[in-house]
């Protein structure tokens, strides 16, 4: 009953003309961003974040979430027509999607991708709606040691799945903690790592780091080559985009598999939509009556991963909103956005901001319908976006990044920091250091330190408090186990194989 009332109130918020408009802007931008290879959702959300500071928070979070899940829809277009994933979650769609397009079935592939995204995206929102409120109630019993354990586990999971080298992923996470420590220590008012700069006393703005690492780093990385990919023609007309009844029958299990697996993987910190799409593709292939045909243009091979990467969005918002723990780069930026708008994601977020939470949930139902409408008949139009020359696109991204940072503080010092973090982001890509652990530990660092120090204050300096409470003991043990995986040959081989795929 509580859920139905909440959802009804949520629709009242989401259907306000201004919020409908921002929802449309979000999903439209998300689709464009998803289509453009080399510009991912974290970079876009980070770039546009400063421009939302003067917006109504409900409209702003609805738009940001729209970019997040909209990009998942758009990502399939380039995978199918170009064999280049628009974003990492669409990598696996290339396997069968591009083969279908080469056989003249691009329309059916694009159509089933949109339909699977819609079905699974809606199931993901349903899961968010059903799981988040009870989880938030459960998390009310958490104290500082449990929060420290939870954040350590989240960070450990991200480190585990961030890249081939866990040493590099851990180092990236530790550098994130260091960047997050710069400024005045709120417990003792000691200035830390400020290098005598007044501007650093209040710390380094999360937005500056996120835009630098993701947007600038991505552009610099892409600008290395001038190569253009070969685009297959996009089918015209709605009729050519609709899958046949047989196609839909073939995809029945894929819809279910993508929806459920995607949501479950989304709830886990660190796993993310790329893992979700690969897992659901693997499951689909394992249960298929024609596994040998996977990779040659099988329609379930498009439906399952596309469904999973959309359902994952709903799952990823569960720990973000109820525990304040993001599981990926994009959700870490969304966490920072919520904090900057004056909210505190965690167990009290839903009871204290029911209109915002339910408004967001309702907007995601509406956004998924908008995306289905946008992505079916307008695919040929969106495909034109791919023809934007890189020499126009990249200066635009660089300009919006700089304007975004300057609009936060009006300080050219922050622009200089942006340049430094842009270079860091580029070097990290070049040297194979994953950026997600850095951003995540930057987002969680202050909270982690606070939780640890508060725990030790509670226990008068005894670290046993972290292991004497059952929940924190379990979470810290799991975190340690996760970090020890490279020491177990078989598990590490599995991890490396999954990452290589």
């Amino acid at each position, binding site marked *: 009953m509580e859920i139905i009332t909440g959802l009804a109130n949520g629709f009242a918020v989401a259907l306000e003309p201004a919020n409908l408009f921002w929802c449309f802007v979000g999903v439209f931008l998300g689709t464009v961003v998803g289509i453009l290879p080399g510009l991912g959702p974290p970079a876009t959300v980070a770039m546009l974040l400063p421009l939302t500071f003067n917006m109504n928070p409900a409209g702003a979070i609805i738009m940001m979430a729209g970019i997040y899940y909209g990009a998942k829809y758009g990502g399939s277009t380039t995978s199918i027509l170009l064999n280049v994933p628009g974003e990492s979650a669409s990598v696996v769609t290339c396997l069968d999607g591009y083969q279908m397009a080469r056989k003249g079935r691009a329309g059916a592939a694009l159509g089933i991708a949109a339909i699977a995204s819609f079905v699974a995206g809606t199931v993901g929102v349903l899961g968010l709606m059903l799981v988040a409120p009870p989880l938030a109630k459960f998390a009310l019993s958490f104290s500082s040691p449990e929060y420290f354990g939870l954040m350590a586990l989240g960070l450990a999971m991200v480190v585990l799945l961030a890249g081939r080298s866990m040493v590099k992923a851990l180092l990236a996470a*530790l*550098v994130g903690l260091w960047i997050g420590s710069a400024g005045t220590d709120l417990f003792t008012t000691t200035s*830390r790592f400020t290098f005598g700069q007044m501007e650093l006393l209040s710390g380094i703005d999360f937005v500056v780091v996120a835009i630098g690492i993701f947007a600038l780093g991505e552009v610099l990385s892409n600008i290395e080559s001038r190569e253009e990919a070969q685009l297959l023609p996009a089918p015209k007309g709605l009729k050519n985009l609709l899958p046949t009844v047989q196609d839909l029958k073939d995809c029945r299990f894929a819809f279910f598999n993508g929806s459920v697996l995607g949501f479950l993987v989304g709830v886990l910190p660190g796993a993310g939509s790329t893992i979700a799409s690969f897992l659901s593709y693997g499951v689909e292939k394992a249960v298929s009556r024609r596994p040998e045909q996977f990779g040659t243009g099988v329609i379930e091979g498009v439906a399952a991963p596309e469904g999973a990467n959309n359902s994952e969005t709903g799952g990823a918002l569960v720990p973000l909103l109820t525990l304040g723990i993001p599981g990926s780069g994009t959700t870490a930026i969304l966490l920072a956005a919520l904090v900057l708008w004056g909210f505190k994601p965690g167990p009290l977020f839903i009871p204290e901001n029911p209109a915002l939470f339910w408004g967001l949930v309702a907007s995601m139902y509406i956004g998924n319908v908008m995306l289905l409408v946008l992505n079916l008949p307008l695919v040929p139009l969106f495909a034109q976006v791919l023809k934007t020359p890189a*020499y*126009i696109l990249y200066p635009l991204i660089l300009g919006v990044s700089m304007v975004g940072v*300057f609009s936060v503080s009006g300080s050219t010092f922050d622009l200089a920091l942006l*340049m430094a973090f842009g270079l860091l982001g580029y070097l990290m890509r*070049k040297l194979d250091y994953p950026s997600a652990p850095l951003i995540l530990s930057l987002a969680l660092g202050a909270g982690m330190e606070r939780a640890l120090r508060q725990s030790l204050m509670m226990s008068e300096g005894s670290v046993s408090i972290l292991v004497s409470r059952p929940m924190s003991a379990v979470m810290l043990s799991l975190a340690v186990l996760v970090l020890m995986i490279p020491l177990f040959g078989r598990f590490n081989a599995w991890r490396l194989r999954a990452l290589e795929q």
Partner: protein
Amino acid sequence: MEGKTRNSGDLWSGLALAALGAYIVVQASRWDYLTPEGPGAGFFPLWYGIAIVALSAVLVVSNLRQRSSLRVTIAWDRVGRALSTWLALALSVALFKPLGFLISFALVTYFVVAVMYRRPLKIAALVATAIAAGFYLVFPFALGLALPVGVLGF
């Protein structure tokens, strides 16, 4: 030649991170580790500083012990394009005070189009002017956002 480029990135980044870790440890040891109220300002940084030193040592040592044929190579020739763009961008930020955002950004756009993508100079000038004008119309004009202003007043 190949021997010089082999995995030098891991080695040098490991050494740089070790230096960073050592700096963090030295700084943290100057702040209170424990106070009567609980952990001090140096408590958390000291531990992650030590972890950075230890992990970067692992990275450096494992890199040195690796057989050369297994080492990762980096195409340093492509790095030049990215670093040139970064330098142009950094220079444009330095020029914000005298020239303002619009002129500085138009110059960096011109550089990207003409030098990085080798488009005709006329096209580069057209793209640079159009993008700078577009930024002016969207941000200061339509959205009311302030951009860095130069001595010319815009």
